[in-house]
């Protein structure tokens, strides 16, 4: 019989002693799982796991600067790995910089979570139960694994968040002058703070799903309009920008309550738009950060609400140029605007409409809800119909100013040949300029350096308007978590390899080339029946791109977490469900305990779960911490070429046999293995290279013969298709003839014999000698001594 002893008790005569009995009793009653070795880990608790990873996947550094000027003893020349005045060397400054970047990313999600959780608890109370639907019992896999608690209510999430906040501060402390001197220790801290990031993301998304009733693991959510050309300009247009739906939500509610939903357009930029559509599927998605200036310069919004993260730092001036009132709502980005929270709504509206102030800071949800539609309506009525970006005459005038000095080319992130486009346009051919729209990230750096003050961005957008408008389609609304039942179905085929892998396309829009490449890459894997999971900007970009039949990937593939499924989990913070799905595989399929048991779970994932992260256009600090958090969890990540500017990668060296080993719990021996996966963080240059590397990185030591055969089949086929021949390293992934693709078996055996000196029994078509290790169906790998001891004892 359970006695409800919830509450605090103070013992008489004993000062400063407080016992929280109820919580312990309830948790024990509901969760019989033993607490693992590392609940609420500090910096040191998982260091051993990190060093295991980092000794195998050696950090690689690519300095952007070879000097340091962070303290007053500098600036210091660190070139050639010299040491500066404080004693730090170049490699260590890069490790520190990555740690700082990951701390920023982690702080962004965690502060977002804190803001949201406190607000939600105030509104709904701390006892609101965490209910993610009937198919989700493992409600918070990251929190269970890292913190060691099973949160039942919103109030319980505070414990996880407090831990994350504490660890972020501790890691940030380590970046102060005179602290860490070993790169592996900095990398361990980067991993630690990035794990905290995953906790912060999970808190934020669980809180908003529960409180705002967002989709709860529904694979068949609505399809919403996405892209530049989605809004009906005959109505007032309200645009939300950023990552925190807390401020846009009351506007949607207000419009519903007043019966005005059909009289306004509500559309979003960046992740707030994902969460808006999760809240209200009538909302629309304009696109990612690279669409901010496109949308503003086109004069589409009648009012803009900004919140936080990945919003342009020149948002206010961009809005001012187009006379679009701005309402900043987050204290993370006040933008120099006056705080009008205490003012009457009428005064705020009047000042915004009259242009007395270009914007206001307003964080009271009720006031935002009332101000925004009224301002949008008034601005809309005043607005005169104009051509988007420029008139034809203005376009020609701007183009004719160009002298082909090429300053723009030498500052463009993609070295776009704007000069050539302008030159052709001066002769009457605008097609070259128009084609730049496909690759342009609308950063406006070109305009900063143009000696003739040409509105280069507007020129590119105007000439490419047809293409811009054609990028309009449908995105399947973010579904949040993966169901336990889905994991039960796919856990075994993923671990054994029959489902060749999970590709998680996550991140920003700093693509090396046209956006359509992302679609091509993901389509290749969907057709081959990998599971593709997506979120954030990647998830909305593929919603803009249609095939010849006019369909987006969301309209071609189902939304369930299964072979050939395309799963949009939602916004940045919903990335936690992707990490959570890998953890759930270890728990639900393999019955591995989660509670404070991080290293065992990460070790399981590294050795068994063929999941690979993919960020084709990363740029934010959040992308750095998301990726590094996945790395600590045993998930490799492939980034596009801009990802090298994070300055650090984790790349293994296959020829170093001593780095590639595991303990085999079955035989009790240390076994040398194939380098699978061979890297934890790797940049690629082209879509062709991305496809081949992603296929390779799904290979895991635990693959069964059939699983390895399937994975190798794809790896070999894709390499032949995109690289022109078989990959160079395929033989190292062959453990027996059972691993070989059936159709090419004889051909491959011949290559192994003739080119690699392997011994083959041709009568039986068996490999006699050659592989790094033989295929053993009972192979049970681990890199963690404690896991080896635990399961060896059980045997």
């Amino acid at each position: 019989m359970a006695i409800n002893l919830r509450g605090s008790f103070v013992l008489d005569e004993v000062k400063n002693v407080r016992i929280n009995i109820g919580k312990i009793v309830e948790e024990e009653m509901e969760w019989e799982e033993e607490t693992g070795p590392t609940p609420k880990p500090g910096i040191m608790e998982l260091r051993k796991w990190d060093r295991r990873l980092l000794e195998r996947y050696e950090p690689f550094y690519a300095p952007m600067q070879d000097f340091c000027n962070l303290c007053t003893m500098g600036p210091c020349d660190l070139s050639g790995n010299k040491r500066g005045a404080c004693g730090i060397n170049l490699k260590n400054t890069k490790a520190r910089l990555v740690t700082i970047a990951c701390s920023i990313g982690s702080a962004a999600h965690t502060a977002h979570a804190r803001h949201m959780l406190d607000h939600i608890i105030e509104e709904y109370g701390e006892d609101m139960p965490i209910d993610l639907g009937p198919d989700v019992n493992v409600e918070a896999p990251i929190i269970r694994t890292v913190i060691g608690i099973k949160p039942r209510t919103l109030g319980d999430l505070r414990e996880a968040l407090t831990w994350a906040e504490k660890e972020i501060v501790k890691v940030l402390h380590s970046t102060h002058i005179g602290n860490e001197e070993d790169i592996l220790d900095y990398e361990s801290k980067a991993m630690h703070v990035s794990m905290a990031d995953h906790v912060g993301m999970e808190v934020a998304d669980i809180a908003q799903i529960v409180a705002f009733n967002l989709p709860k693991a529904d694979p068949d959510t609505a399809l919403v309009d996405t892209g530049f050309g989605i809004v009906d300009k005959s109505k007032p247009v309200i645009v939300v920008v950023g990552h925190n739906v807390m401020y846009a939500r009351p506007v949607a509610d207000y419009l519903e309550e007043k019966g005005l939903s059909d009289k306004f357009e509500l559309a979003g930029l960046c992740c707030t738009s994902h969460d808006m559509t999760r809240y209200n599927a009538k909302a629309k998605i304009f696109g990612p950060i690279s669409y901010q200036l496109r949308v503003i310069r086109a004069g589409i919004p009648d009012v803009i609400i900004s919140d936080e993260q990945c919003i342009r730092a020149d948002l206010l001036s961009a809005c001012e140029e187009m006379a679009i009132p701005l309402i900043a709502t987050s204290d993370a980005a006040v933008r120099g605007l006056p705080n009008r929270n205490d003012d009457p709504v009428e005064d705020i509206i009047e000042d915004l409409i009259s242009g007395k102030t270009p914007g206001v800071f307003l964080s009271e949800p009720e006031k935002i809800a009332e101000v925004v539609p009224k301002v949008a309506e008034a601005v809309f009525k005043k607005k005169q119909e104009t051509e988007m970006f420029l008139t034809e005459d203005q376009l020609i005038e701007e183009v004719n100013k160009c002298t082909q000095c090429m300053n723009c080319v030498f500052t463009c992130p993609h070295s776009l040949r704007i000069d050539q486009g302008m030159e052709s346009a001066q002769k009457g051919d605008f097609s070259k300029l128009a084609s730049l729209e496909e690759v342009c990230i609308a950063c406006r750096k070109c305009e900063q350096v143009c000696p003739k003050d040409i509105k280069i961005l507007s020129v590119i957008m105007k000439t490419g308007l047809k293409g811009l408008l054609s990028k309009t389609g449908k995105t399947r609304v973010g579904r949040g978590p993966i169901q336990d039942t889905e994991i039960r179905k796919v856990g075994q085929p993923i671990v054994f390899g029959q489902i060749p892998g999970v590709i998680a396309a996550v991140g920003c829009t700093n693509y090396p080339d046209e956006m359509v490449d992302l679609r091509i890459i993901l389509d290749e894997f969907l057709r081959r029946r990998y599971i593709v999971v997506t979120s954030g900007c990647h998830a909305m970009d593929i919603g803009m791109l249609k095939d010849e039949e006019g369909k987006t990937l969301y309209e071609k593939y189902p939304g369930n977490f299964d072979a050939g499924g395309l799963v949009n989990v939602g916004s940045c913070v919903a990335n936690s469900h992707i990490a959570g799905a890998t953890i759930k595989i270890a728990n639900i399929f393999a019955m591995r305990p989660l509670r404070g048991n991080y290293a065992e779970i990460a070790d399981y994932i590294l050795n068994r779960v063929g999941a690979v992260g993919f960020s084709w256009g990363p740029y934010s600090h959040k992308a750095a911490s998301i990726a590094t958090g996945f790395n600590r969890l045993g998930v490799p990540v492939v980034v596009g070429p801009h990802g090298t500017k994070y300055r650090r990668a984790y790349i293994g060296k296959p020829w170093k046999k001593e780095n590639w080993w595991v303990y085999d719990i079955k035989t009790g021996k240390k076994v040398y293995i194939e380098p699978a996966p061979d890297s934890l963080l790797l940049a690629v240059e082209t879509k062709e290279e991305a496809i081949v590397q992603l296929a390779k990185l799904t290979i895991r030591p635990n693959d069964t013969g059939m699983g390895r055969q399937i994975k190798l089949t794809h790896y070999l086929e894709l390499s032949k298709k995109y690289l022109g021949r078989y990959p160079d390293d395929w033989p190292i992934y062959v453990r027996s003839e059972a691993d070989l693709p059936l159709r090419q078996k004889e051909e491959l055996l011949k290559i192994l014999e003739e080119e690699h000196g392997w011994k083959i029994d041709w009568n039986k078509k068996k490999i006699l000698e050659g592989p790094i290790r033989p295929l053993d169906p009972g192979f049970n790998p681990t890199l963690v001594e404690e896991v080896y001891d635990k399961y060896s004892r059980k045997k």
Partner: protein
Amino acid sequence: MTKVKKEEKYPVAKRFDIADIQVSREAQAVKPEVVARLIKRAKRPVLVTGGYLLKEPELVEFAARMYEKGIPIVATGGSSKPLIEKGVNPLVVSYTLHHFTQYMQDEEWQGFDGNGKYDLVLYLGFIPYLLSRMLSSLKHFAKVTTVSLDQFYQPHAKFSFTNLTRNKEMHYRMLDELINML
């Protein structure tokens, strides 16, 4: 192709991105004959090709001609496909530039064929910002001579062609001249 004439002025060696600045030495801008001498003196030269070969067939032609002159090719970024179609047999096709740069920083690594470290690495056909990061890594953490043959001046290489973005024809003529001297 006609040779770049002495009286024809080489463009200024301007960084491909004006903000990609470091305090250490910048690449020496070199003419084709200097690169040819470097190749002739090298014991283990290698040409690394990148993704631009998929967009610029002329670069495939030049790489194939360098291969014919006995320079092995490490094909990255999918550049192997058009090269193989031209009859080239690259040393490797499925390692990325990132892999290769990491491997070159290891004292023990003996090259893809196990015959020893590369002492001269030539680069052709890369996204400039990607190559810049890799060259920066090698500049600070490895002992290898790097040469960029791309149209963009690469400040972190040891040697680089000057900036030829304005004059592609000159870029091609310089590559042609280099190959003819091998």
